[in-house]
């Protein structure tokens, strides 16, 4: 039971109309693993992880999350999504609520915690990401880096089994990338299962257990982190690495 992968994707196919976005992707993620998904734009990385929590549908193949088939008719998606957190590229904090309420909302309405418990947990998480004195601020008054850290706290608030990150630092000014990566690194070392779509190869190299390289809708390489960087198996991966690491 415990060595079952927490996320098991098998032969996933997805198209947007005539365009094939995912071509037969297969991927397994074990509990506690930190997996980085990288690749050129349009390779389908974001689409792939959005399929995991059912935000995107797929035509064929299967995705099992903690034993639940994501695409099955009648599967309880809200319940599944409460077990998997997600952090978005553009933070997507709710602009009409304070930071505290952003983090408390789902706790109250999905996990049915009391307001008091939810607020308390929210404050704990804010402290964990280093923003304890921003509880009553509104998102518009925070910097991008601060907003993203709040978003991570929001994802943690439901005590998820895994967190999906969709290019968490791509919309940030360079000075703020570090503070977010710091939080993510701490998260990884605390044993959280993470799937991170990113271009931050430094982070990938030091924190990830595995690197998954995608190109044109396919998973081209899937290797342990050190191996990927020193001995890439395919020419496409080699090309990508040389471009990314060149500057």
């Amino acid at each position, binding site marked *: 039971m415990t060595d079952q992968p927490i996320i098991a994707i098998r032969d996933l196919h997805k198209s947007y109309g005539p365009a094939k976005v995912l071509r037969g992707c297969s991927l397994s993620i074990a509990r506690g693993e930190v997996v980085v998904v990288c690749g050129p734009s349009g390779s389908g990385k974001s689409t792939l992880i959005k399929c995991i*929590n059912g935000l995107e549908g797929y035509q064929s193949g299967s995705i099992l999350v903690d034993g639940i088939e994501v695409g099955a008719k009648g599967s309880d998606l809200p319940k599944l999504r409460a077990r998997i*957190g997600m952090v978005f590229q553009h933070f997507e904090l*709710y602009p009409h609520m304070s930071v505290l309420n952003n983090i408390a*909302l789902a706790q109250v309405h*999905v996990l049915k915690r009391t307001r008091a418990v939810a607020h308390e947990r929210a404050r704990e998480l804010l402290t964990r990401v280093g923003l304890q004195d921003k509880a009553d601020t509104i998102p518009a008054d925070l910097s991008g880096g601060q907003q993203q850290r709040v978003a991570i706290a929001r994802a943690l608030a439901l005590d998820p089994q895994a967190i999906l990150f969709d290019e968490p630092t791509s919309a940030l000014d360079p000075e703020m990338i570090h503070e977010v990566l710091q939080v993510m690194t701490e998260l990884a070392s605390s044993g959280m299962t993470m799937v991170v779509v990113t271009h931050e190869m430094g982070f990938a190299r030091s924190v990830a257990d595995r690197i998954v390289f995608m190109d044109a809708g396919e998973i081209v390489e899937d290797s342990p982190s050190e191996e990927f960087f020193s001995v890439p198996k395919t020419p496409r991966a080699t090309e990508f690495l040389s471009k990314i690491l060149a500057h």
Partner: protein
Amino acid sequence: MNYHFDWTPIWAARGLIAEGLLLTIALSAASLALSTIIGLIVGGAATAHSRTVRACALFFTETMRNIPLLIHMYIWYMAFSFLRLPAFSCAVLGLSLYSGAYVAEVVRAGIGSVGRGQMQAALATGLTGLQAMRYIIYPQALRIIAPSLASLFSQLIKDSSLASVIAVGELTYQAGAIDGQTFRTFEVYITISLIYLVLVTAASQLVLLIPGSRSEAAAGRFADA
């Protein structure tokens, strides 16, 4: 111009004017409430996932908007006369369905302008679609459309004047009555116009009560529905 101005009969008839004013306000308030409910539901439906639901919403909006308000009122008053609804109710129903369709359009646009990412973020935390609409999407949409809603409310007050045609004793009806009694045609209608002007201006300021709506509301005093 041989017209002899005489405003005193207008003042003498202020009781009738007051009655008419009260009915106009009652009519407008009732229709505002009903059309807002209709508009929120249909506008939300217009953004639903199901194509059938969206089509129904579109059908409703197109039909209700493209039938003139006067016809709406006549339909309830004459075609559905077997329902024996009092004229006031006919007017409210006619106004609400007509306005409701316009509110629905505005609500739909408002929901659409809340970024897709907000919905995804809300769903990603395990909220159901309905919960996401209620706590995340609608609150943001309402703030965006507040100025347009002010315009529609102003328009509603003006449209209520058509109720006079189905014998509801609101402001315009009373104007006709007073004109019949006093023959001060010009004074009566100018007075009524000014009263509507005041009502409409007051109505558009009310929308500033919605928390978070900005002073763009001041720009939308009169409707262009």
